[in-house]
């Protein structure tokens, strides 16, 4: 599984309305790219274009993998909502992809992944019996079982409380390392902690911002993380004005 990079160039419209740009975006292979921006600038549309689910979007340009091969089948998606099926237990949810494709999920692999995210003891609980953090860990497990080289994250931690969110960020950074991650977020602190490449997206376009030197995930209270958070917040403030 060699992870390809992602590249997007062009502008997008839905119906008659412009969603974004002309703009260009690059997510390097095997890196964690944070796409930071206010709500409504088209960040999610970019993810949907890479995921191949942007039916209503008219892209004048290209959204593809840098290795030239199609992205279909090489992408996993994790959204803000955990999207767990309430009638399946945690293990069943983790193995959902295989079930929908008519494949047999390897139970040992599912068990190993649940162990990685610390949900082994809850494998046979249904989502209704889990906390918000546990549910998002189950969603991460489902993403890991898919084992795709490209992972698209659409604000997956934004509904969690601060401590749970920080723990989820650490866990995701650990478990998704080596894959090409494109992480849409509106949380400057999250981008400063996780991004090996940080892109700020405003109505004016996309601007790369140098991430802190330290390897991700960075401590939330490290001075350079805080300084980066500040810089990014300032950019968002100025961009919105």
């Amino acid at each position: 599984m060699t992870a390809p990079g992602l590249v997007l160039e062009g502008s997008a419209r839905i119906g008659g309305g412009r969603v974004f740009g002309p703009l260009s975006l690059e997510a390097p292979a095997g890196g964690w790219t944070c796409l930071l921006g206010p709500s409504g600038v088209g960040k999610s549309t970019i993810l949907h274009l890479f995921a191949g689910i942007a039916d209503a979007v008219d892209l004048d340009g290209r959204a593809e993998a840098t290795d030239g091969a199609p992205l279909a089948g090489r992408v996993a998606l994790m959204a803000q909502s955990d999207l767990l099926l309430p009638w399946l237990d945690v293990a069943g949810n983790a193995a959902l992809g295989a079930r929908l494709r008519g494949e047999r999920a390897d139970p040992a692999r599912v068990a190993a992944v649940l162990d990685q995210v610390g949900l082994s003891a809850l494998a046979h609980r249904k989502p209704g019996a889990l906390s918000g953090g546990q549910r998002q860990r189950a969603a991460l497990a489902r993403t890991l079982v898919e084992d795709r080289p490209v992972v698209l994250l659409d604000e997956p931690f934004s509904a969690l409380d601060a401590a749970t969110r920080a723990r989820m960020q650490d866990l995701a950074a650990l478990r998704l390392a080596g894959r090409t991650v494109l992480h849409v977020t509106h949380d400057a602190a999250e981008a400063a902690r996780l991004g090996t490449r940080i892109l700020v997206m405003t109505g004016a376009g996309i601007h790369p911002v140098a991430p802190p030197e330290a390897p991700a995930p960075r401590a939330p209270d490290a001075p350079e993380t805080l300084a980066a958070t500040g810089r990014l917040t300032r950019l968002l403030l100025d961009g919105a004005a």
Partner: protein
Amino acid sequence: MNALRLLVPAALMLLIWQGVVTAFAMPNFILPAPARVASTLWESRALIAENALVTITEVLAGLVLGAALGWISAVGLAASAWARRTLRPILVFSQAVPVFALAPILTLWFGYGLGSKIAMALLIIYFPVTSSFFDALMRTPEGWDRLARVMGGGKWRTLWHLRIPAALPGFLSGLRLAAVYAPIGAIIGEWVGASKGLGYLMLLANGRAKIDLMFAALAVLAVFTLALHRAVDLGADWLLRRRER
């Protein structure tokens, strides 16, 4: 507590009924007193039970068949754009025909026995079940739909493992309605032409001026309809709770 909540209104109704009979000196052939209906119910219990069994069979068979047919139709419509374009307008248009008006035709086609009543109950519940389940099937939450597509889920597998279970509440609310409608269908069928059943018994009793027997049959029908409605309601709630626990 639950039984009490049911008993109090029932007792109140009986009291009002008796009050009306006493106050207006109602003759037995217009409105018999509750006590008289009760004693008729007891004396004619074999006759009523025999006919009730027929009606109950018709209702349950109509309910099961109508729900099954509605389930299949809704899934077929949800699965095929062609079916939606072609069959759905026909389905909606068919609702312009009052189902009751079909009863004589059904009797002509299926005879005086159980068949025409089951067909009537089936027809009357088919549309609510189909439309309520179909609407739910077409409203799979967007996020789940996207997830399934990114996962590369097949159309039929996604339908089976995701859209149908997600639409179960819609199917069950159609079924709850069906439990109320099905007895209406069976009774209409019996009124048009039958030789057994509670609806038939009511007509027969009316013709022979046995109004107390008519009321006794009506009471049994009302209790059965309530019990069926309650059973389906509880069953649906239980199913929805259980699958998420």
